[in-house]
């Protein structure tokens, strides 16, 4: 069945007649309920306006609560009031039309010319706001009406709803009378459509009363009724309206009537929008500003963004995540309690009736939770009615079955910044209460396990399940569309593990090899590389080769030192990776080979053997990496940054020298001997030079420290292999934290009148210590002064992050909004769907999908040539 589509939605202004026509009740009393708690007829809770209490029926349509959409009522206003939203437009109209005859202050030919221009722009789907602006500008300066010759007086508009003509205030009634005189023919020149609006409708004489379903009252625990903000506001309006009418009939003095009129205007204004500038917002008794019509629509939690563009859903779950390297990357571990609550529909047909019956009869985990009858009734399956329901089961019913292994679910972590933030996983029902995921899928979700929570959704229709499996499965997203490289890959321990396994020539006997490859499906071991005293030994490189498909590549590893001349295969650091025919011959596997974002080996596998093979490779890789790191043993603690006394001395010497050098620079500056750098002041030059000296000192200290730590140090292994941390982190832990900065400069704020940062220093001290240089390491600990400066730098970082997230979030929203309607057509062009505007003749100039592109290039020519040549041989 092809579902019907809505063709369009037309927007118009409600006319008073229309408001009366759609109204089912005229509301006259401000009271809502009588003493017995029943709604008062002709009151704001009139039963004809719809039902909200369960059990009752609507007096208008007869529907029950939930079925009846509610019906509008209306209030006859005792005097017309201005609609705030149109106040400005009314002001413009008053100045653009004759105060006597109501005609536009333009000759007919001129008017038609403008109208023609507007029509033309409309035809071309272009903005015509500027023409309308011009019409208003031109007409405003006209002094005499070209039609009747009446002299014009400028109408001054005072926010929010007052109009003055030479100090004389125009009442809404006057305004309405003037607007009535504007002929339909003149309206298009003001950008108004006579079919949709009459100008006088912008001055309200009748007010629609929204149905009770729009403003339901809630019953508090105390049994008291608490009314919606809108109801409160409507009560105010009716009360004043009533008073106004009584006073008018009673012949009250004009002054009092005017005051009441003002008050009515105020209430109607705040009913429509409670954030109008110029008047105080209407408040609740507690002092909280009321949430009226405009506030309901506006903003992030408003109707548009909060309830229409984003909706709440069923069949979802949320809990803390934790890692499990033993499940595949396209699986997710679902806690049993969650799996027992979430359901998947099972459509009963005559072919699977028995299967369905069995499900309903089950009393353990994958059992049926609900049965939905063809009439839509939903029946919970309980111990008491299980057998009866199973008996009654027939084709056409839907059995809601608990989530079980092999079901497809969507998994998501906020913020959902890119499409890899929601991917489809296969369910693995597991004990305990967290969602489990393979750590290799952390990078696309940007997840870690420090308490992160994630959401899970169960697609219900077969179409949705098929789409999830084909388009959203994890392996479909190994390559990122952002840069066309792998975004899923090894992290942290995977990298350290493989590094330890493949570095150099580590030997493993049969037993050890078996331990490592236990989870893999390997039938035959390769020939052992060495046999010593009858014992067979395999190298770590051989073990890694077991999970490799037939690929041949060469590249420099992450640990590459960047020697001036690369020795390639003979690299003394084992940093040149050579893989031939699926065999790791030389080199160490590290971040560059299998890491997320970089992984060259991964990239090669996915391009040569496809997504499934790449998925298997990542799975196998996590398995052996984890086992390898467990076999070797890998730990990291505070004593790992211990450096010998000798090193500490050297570091202190380097820093002392640097500080001395800084002093010398300052002295030179004070004596005026410092040469300023071109385009910089003397002070800036000094600062830059000092920063340079101190930066260099820290680097030197770091080098000394790393020399003494050696390549077997856990922290060093993690840093060089790219698993976690950097040499800078290490330097800061072991040697010297270095210069703290605020706004990219040395710390200079503090006591500005004596020009010093803290009272511990002499006025005007520019030395390293006085300006936030921290010479201690994290291991040594910071002095109180250093600690303070460090906190300053740290705070800046925190503020920076907080500001950045909100800014980049807004940027992303704007980008999405601007580009969301672009689509690649069948002919390869890119078009904007709403306006059919052609944006690109060919997507990206060559039509190539960035995901499939090879580092931005359309195709990998070199590789194709290599392939063809190999085939030829």
């Amino acid at each position, binding site marked *: 069945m092809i*579902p019907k589509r809505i063709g369009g*939605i037309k*927007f118009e202004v409600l006319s008073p007649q229309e408001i009366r026509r759609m109204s089912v009740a005229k509301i006259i009393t401000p009271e809502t309920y009588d003493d017995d708690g029943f709604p008062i007829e002709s009151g704001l809770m009139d039963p004809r306006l719809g039902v909200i209490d369960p059990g009752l029926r609507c007096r208008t349509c007869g529907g029950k609560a939930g079925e009846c959409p509610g019906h509008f009522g209306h209030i006859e206003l005792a005097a017309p009031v201005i609609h705030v939203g149109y106040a400005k437009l009314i002001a413009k109209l008053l100045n653009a039309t004759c105060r006597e005859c109501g005609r536009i202050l333009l000759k007919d030919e001129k008017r038609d010319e403008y109208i023609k221009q507007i029509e033309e722009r409309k035809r071309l789907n272009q903005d015509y706001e500027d023409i309308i602006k011009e019409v208003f500008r031109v007409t405003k300066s006209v002094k005499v009406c070209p039609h009747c010759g009446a002299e014009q007086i400028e109408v001054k508009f005072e926010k929010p709803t007052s109009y003055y003509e030479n100090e004389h205030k125009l009442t809404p009634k006057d305004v309405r009378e003037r607007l009535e005189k504007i002929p339909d023919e003149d309206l298009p020149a003001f950008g108004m459509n006579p079919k949709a609006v009459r100008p006088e409708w912008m001055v309200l004489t009748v007010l629609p009363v929204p149905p009770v379903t729009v403003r339901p009252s809630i019953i508090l625990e105390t049994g008291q009724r608490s009314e919606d903000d809108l109801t409160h506001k409507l009560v105010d309006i009716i009360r004043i309206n009533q008073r106004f009418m009584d006073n008018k009939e009673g012949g009250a003095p004009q002054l009092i009537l005017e005051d009441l009129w003002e008050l009515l205007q105020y209430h109607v204004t705040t009913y429509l929008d409670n954030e109008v500038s110029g008047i105080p917002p209407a408040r609740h008794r507690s002092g909280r500003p009321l949430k009226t019509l405009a506030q309901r629509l506006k903003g992030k939690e408003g109707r548009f963004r909060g309830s229409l*563009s984003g909706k709440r859903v069923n069949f979802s779950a949320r809990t803390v995540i934790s890692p499990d390297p033993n499940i595949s990357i396209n699986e997710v571990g679902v806690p049993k309690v969650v799996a027992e609550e979430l359901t998947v529909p099972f459509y009963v047909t005559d072919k699977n009736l028995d299967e369905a019956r069995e499900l309903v009869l089950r009393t353990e985990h994958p059992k049926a939770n609900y049965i939905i009858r063809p009439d839509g009734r939903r029946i919970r399956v309980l111990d008491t009615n299980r057998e009866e329901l199973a008996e009654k089961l027939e084709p056409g019913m839907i059995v809601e079955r608990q989530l079980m292994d092999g079901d497809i679910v969507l998994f998501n972590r906020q913020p959902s910044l890119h499409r890899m933030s929601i991917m489809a996983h296969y369910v693995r029902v597991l004990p305990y209460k967290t969602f489990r995921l393979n750590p290799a899928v952390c990078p696309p979700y940007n997840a870690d396990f420090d308490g992160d929570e994630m959401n899970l959704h169960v697609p219900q229709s077969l179409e949705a399940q098929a789409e999830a499996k084909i388009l959203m499965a994890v392996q479909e997203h190994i390559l990122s569309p952002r840069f066309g490289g792998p975004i899923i890959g090894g992290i942290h321990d995977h990298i350290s593990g493989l590094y330890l396994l493949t570095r150099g020539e580590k030997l493993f006997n049969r037993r050890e090899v078996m331990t490592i490859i236990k989870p893999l499906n390997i039938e035959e071991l390769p020939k052992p590389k060495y046999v010593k005293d009858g014992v067979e030994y395999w190298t770590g490189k051989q073990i890694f080769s077991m999970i490799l498909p037939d690929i041949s590549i060469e590249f420099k590893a992450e640990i590459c030192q960047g020697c001036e001349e690369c020795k390639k295969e003979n690299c003394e650091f084992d940093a040149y990776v050579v893989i031939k025919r699926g065999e790791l011959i030389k080199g160490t596997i590290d971040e560059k080979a299998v890491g997320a974002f970089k992984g060259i080996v991964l990239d090669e596998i996915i391009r040569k053997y496809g997504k499934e093979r790449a998925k298997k490779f990542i799975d196998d890789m996590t398995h052996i990496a984890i086992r390898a790191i467990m076999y070797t043993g890998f730990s990291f603690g505070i004593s790992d940054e211990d450096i010998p006394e000798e090193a500490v001395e050297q570091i202190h010497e380097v820093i002392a020298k640097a500080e001395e050098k800084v002093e010398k620079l300052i002295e030179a500056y004070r004596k005026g001997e410092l040469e300023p750098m071109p385009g910089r002041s003397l002070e800036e030059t000094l600062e830059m030079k000092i920063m340079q000296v101190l930066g260099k000192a820290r680097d030197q200290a770091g080098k000394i420290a790393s020399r003494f730590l050696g390549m077997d140090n856990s922290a060093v292994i993690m840093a060089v292999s790219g698993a976690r941390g950097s040499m800078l982190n290490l330097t800061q832990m072991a040697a010297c934290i270095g210069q703290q900065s605020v706004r990219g400069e040395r710390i200079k704020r503090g006591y500005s009148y004596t020009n010093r940062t803290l009272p511990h220093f002499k006025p005007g001290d520019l030395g390293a210590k006085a300006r936030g240089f921290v010479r201690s390491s994290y291991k040594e600990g910071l002095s109180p002064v250093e600690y303070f400066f460090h906190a300053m730098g740290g705070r800046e970082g925190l503020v920076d992050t907080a500001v950045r997230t909100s800014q980049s979030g807004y940027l992303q929203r704007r980008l999405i909004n601007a580009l*969301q309607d672009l689509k690649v057509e069948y002919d390869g062009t890119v078009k904007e769907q*709403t306006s059919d505007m052609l944006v690109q003749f060919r*997507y990206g100039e060559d039509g190539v999908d960035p995901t499939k592109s090879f580092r931005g290039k359309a195709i990998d020519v070199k590789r*194709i040539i290599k392939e063809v040549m190999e085939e030829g041989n």
Partner: protein
Amino acid sequence: MTTLDKILDEYPLPLSVKEEIKKELEKINASEDIARKVVERCYQVYLRNLMEPGEAAGIVAAQSIGEPGTQMTMRTFHYAGVAEIDVTLGLPRLIEILDVRKNPSTPMMTVRLLPEYATDKEKATEIANKIEATYILDVADLATDIRRMRIIVTPDEKAMSKKGLSVDEVKKKIEKSLKNVEVAEGEGKIVIQITEPSYKVLMDTLDKLKKLVLAGIKEIRRVIVRKDEESGEYVLYTEGSNLKKVMKVKGVDASRTITNNIYEIYEVLGIEAARNAVIREAISTLEEQGLEVNVRHIMLVADVMTVDGELRQIGRHGVAGEKQSILARAAFEMTVNNLLEAAVRGDVDRLKGITENIIVGQPIKLGTGDVELVLKLGSKL
């Protein structure tokens, strides 16, 4: 035409790909047989790598640019290579580019020179002096004589000759820009006599004098001459930007001179240049942060910003604000105003875009939602 060209001609591959194939094949001196095989294979791979119809190219592009935004820094750093000039980088710069700010926070130009000037340091410096804004304090000392209500300008000969200014020129400039004064010259000094004896006027005149640009281009606050290590030519880097005027300066190679002020490029060189500028600036901002983003995404953004011949910003006052759909605009920003305005105009929302259809609860016309082929149940294929 070589046989290789002939083979390549048979396949509708993009030009850049053809060139690369040609280069690579020539390198290995491939036989015709192999060449044909390679080109055929390349074409097959190319077809496989094409974007799929119905793909939400826009959303992918928006995500690809927006997602790395969270990883960018917020600080102003020094321009790579020229430490003297501060340039906004990272997220603020990216926002600036997409917002199409008319006055970016750190405008900057890279001025390249014609060959005869580019190799000669002196000539290059001469041009630098010519375009750099020179204020009176740069070339002269000012003194106020309160008793006689006048300002005395004492030119510094060395500075004057460096900037190529004569006392007479300075005098004329002053005469032209200051009102109610009498300017006299004597003993190499310029005396400015205030006609109206008021202390306030004297001070105002002094302030005006200090702001007076004697030579050069007002916007160009500073010029730095650098030798480009690669090409060996002298390049001028300026703080501040005025493309139109700098391009007219003699010795400047207008075709290789650029500014980072995109709006200026749009005004001076037109929409296509602006498109390229958006791409170039966005790419360099992202690259500087070490973030890899495919050009195609940025090209798409640039194209959307420039399709209708005007440079439109990404946001309320540009692309998003000119959307056809009322509901889409209402869901973005300024909800109430958009609805009220639509009612007066009697606008119709045709529900063609994404947001609108989400709002009314219909499938969107993208990807799998865009397929119109329906198989009737029970019918045979």
